[in-house]
């Protein structure tokens, strides 16, 4: 059981880093605020989740593993609600989502 966890942990961490890179790519290249918000919150939280799972598999004790997972849960709550707050404020302030090719960047 423990050996299986130790075997799977590096792959989980690598997958997490991959998702972080995908989020960074989205933040860099996506055309408007809303798509960048989408890319960042989804990819980063998934990346952090996989990374936390991998690190929790390697953790020294169950309580340490639980604390690492607590960090993930906290970031998940904070960034998902934060994304909603920012998106609705941006919409109310008149930033229009990009709808078709050729429309201007917001």
């Amino acid at each position: 059981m423990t050996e299986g966890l130790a075997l799977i942990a590096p792959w989980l961490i690598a997958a997490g880093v991959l998702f972080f890179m995908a989020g960074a790519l989205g933040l860099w290249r996506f055309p408007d605020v809303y798509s960048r918000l989408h890319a960042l919150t989804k990819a980063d939280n998934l990346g952090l989740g996989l990374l936390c799972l991998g690190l929790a598999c390697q953790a020294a004790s169950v309580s340490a593993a639980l604390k690492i997972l607590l960090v993930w849960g906290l970031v998940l709550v904070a960034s998902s609600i934060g994304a909603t707050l920012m998106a609705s404020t941006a919409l109310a302030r008149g930033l229009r989502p990009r709808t078709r090719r050729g429309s201007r960047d917001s």
Partner: protein
Amino acid sequence: MSTFIIGFDLLLGAGLLWLAWQALFHPKPFAAVVHFMAFGLVMALVWVRLEALDIALAEAAIGTGVTGALLLAALGRLPNGATPRLALRPWQRPPVALALGVVLLLGLWLAWVAWQLPRPGLSAEVTAALPESGVRHPVTAVLLNLRALDTMLELAVMLGAVWLVWSLGPELRPYAPATALPGLPALTRLLHPLFLMVPAYLLWRGSHAPGGAFPAGAVLGAGGVLLLLADAVPWMQRPDRQPLLRLLLSTGLVLFLGLALGGLLLTGTFFAIPVAIAALAILVVEVAAALSIALMLMACYLYGEPGR
């Protein structure tokens, strides 16, 4: 391995310099403030790298959190627009460049002089005094027993800042948000248990590991700021609760003074805490100091006296 660490250091240093440069010279004030918040974040990583975990905790809570919130709240009230660039006439450029060069050289020279100073340090003395201080973590021992006078004066400075902010006039009422934000109360409710649990944990850890009253008070204060944002602490504005608020604000300082005078009575020396009660006394003072720091941060955030 060590190449990796050197690369890590270089990246951190380059990031810090870039962020500081942009925080000071980016034309837009909002961008400057966000750069400064990111600067605090990278600074916390630097503290971790330098094995100063107490400072990393305090910087994470205060440098990025509370200072950033203060600056962002102030930005919303300041007239916006890019700040005017400093216009220099052609003949002014050489002397200004000369002055800047001299300043940079002076900074380097001062750092070099400080670097060359003999550094015996006080770690041996602190380690020797640790058994009599009542705690096992040297930084907490220095803060609350060995150099407790500094900490008390620091609380007094903070109270003075609150006094100054409140004396300027009534609380500045916030402008309405751009839209209804139903997520905000949910965020507050979900995060609130953590904002109470984490400071308690940090206080408990402070006696034997990095933690203690300053990070705990800062985290509690940040939680209080979140409550203020969601309008969840109406009692702070009620006129009949003002005496209670003032009492709580000064609790940390008053208990510290009581400890100092108690030491004077019991042992004949100002701030000499008897070993037998040191652990308990430090714990009580730490709890009161954390509570006061949290409330003082919230009080500063109102930018004026509430209930007036």
